[in-house]
């Protein structure tokens, strides 16, 4: 069976903050490939100087430069401008909607930005965005089922323990559960394939001993 390479794209700050609070950012390297992070997401993660996850994320981003690709979007300039307006108190919600705009820009340009033959697996905790805005050319996955799948492959001991750790550190992971395949066109216009992101996990040595279907 032909498999499509996976590119993991972190499209909102939620999964990064959650993994930072659980001290599990390493899980983002599950696919042994560079992780793509939108510039606006990076800026969002590093904005609050008093947030407990900020230093963890700053260190993680700084010490894994070879494995993390920051996607430069045209939205970063208005985002930074809006951030300044928020910081001065001029407009308290000036950045609202700009994160969503950055994701929309990414989805429209996914093939150009990532490897053209790679499938983008978009990790998000944002339900309305994942359900309604993300296009069918990307596979949408939320934090909870991602962790549960890692558990199901024996790559972590317990998804619930990771979620509890995040909660102990003051954050409740969204209840959003999505694992929506991308639609991959084939040479036959009447036939399309659905993406499946688990193959790289199955190749790892774990408690389950590899894929069996």
């Amino acid at each position, binding site marked *: 069976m032909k498999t499509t390479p996976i590119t993991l794209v972190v499209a909102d700050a939620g999964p990064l903050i959650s993994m930072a609070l659980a001290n599990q*950012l*390493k*899980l983002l*390297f*599950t696919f*042994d490939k560079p992780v793509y992070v939108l510039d606006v997401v990076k800026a969002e993660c590093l904005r609050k100087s008093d947030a407990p996850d900020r230093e963890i994320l700053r260190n993680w981003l700084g010490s*894994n430069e070879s*494995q993390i690709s920051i996607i430069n979007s045209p939205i970063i300039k208005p985002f930074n401008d809006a951030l300044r307006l928020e910081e001065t108190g001029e407009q308290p919600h000036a950045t609202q909607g700009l994160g969503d705009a950055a994701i929309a820009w990414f989805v429209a340009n996914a093939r150009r930005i990532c490897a053209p033959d790679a499938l983008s697996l978009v990790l998000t905790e944002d*339900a309305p965005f*994942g*359900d309604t805005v993300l296009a069918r050319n990307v596979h949408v996955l939320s934090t*909870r*089922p991602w962790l*549960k*799948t*890692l*558990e*199901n*492959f*024996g*790559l*972590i*001991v*317990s*998804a*619930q323990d990771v979620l509890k750790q995040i909660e102990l550190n003051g954050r409740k992971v969204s*209840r*959003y*559960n*999505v*694992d*929506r*395949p991308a639609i991959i066109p084939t040479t036959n216009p009447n036939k399309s394939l659905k993406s*499946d*992101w*688990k193959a790289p*996990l*199955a190749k*790892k*040595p*774990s*408690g*389950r001993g*590899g*894929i*069996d*279907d």
Partner: protein
Amino acid sequence: MPIAVSQIPASKGQVLPPANLATLNDILTAWQAGKISYRQALELTGIDNLFDLYQAAISSDVKIRTALIPREQRIADAVTAAIKAARKNQTSASSKK
């Protein structure tokens, strides 16, 4: 240097589901195909109620089945027959009074 995920060992005695039931989409698809029960789907997905399970299916583009599978049809038939019999007994008991 991050720790490779493969270095995290599965716990001793950890029971892992088959690989074809490892992802949320796989589990929801199997549930809607009648291959596993909703209770198994809840356990495998870590979702704690039926409403969220249906919501996950909708979000994940898993088609919700409305027709009953044979096993469900048999249960529905048996329950229907039991209710009809109970009603009949109730009716005849009250008419005797």
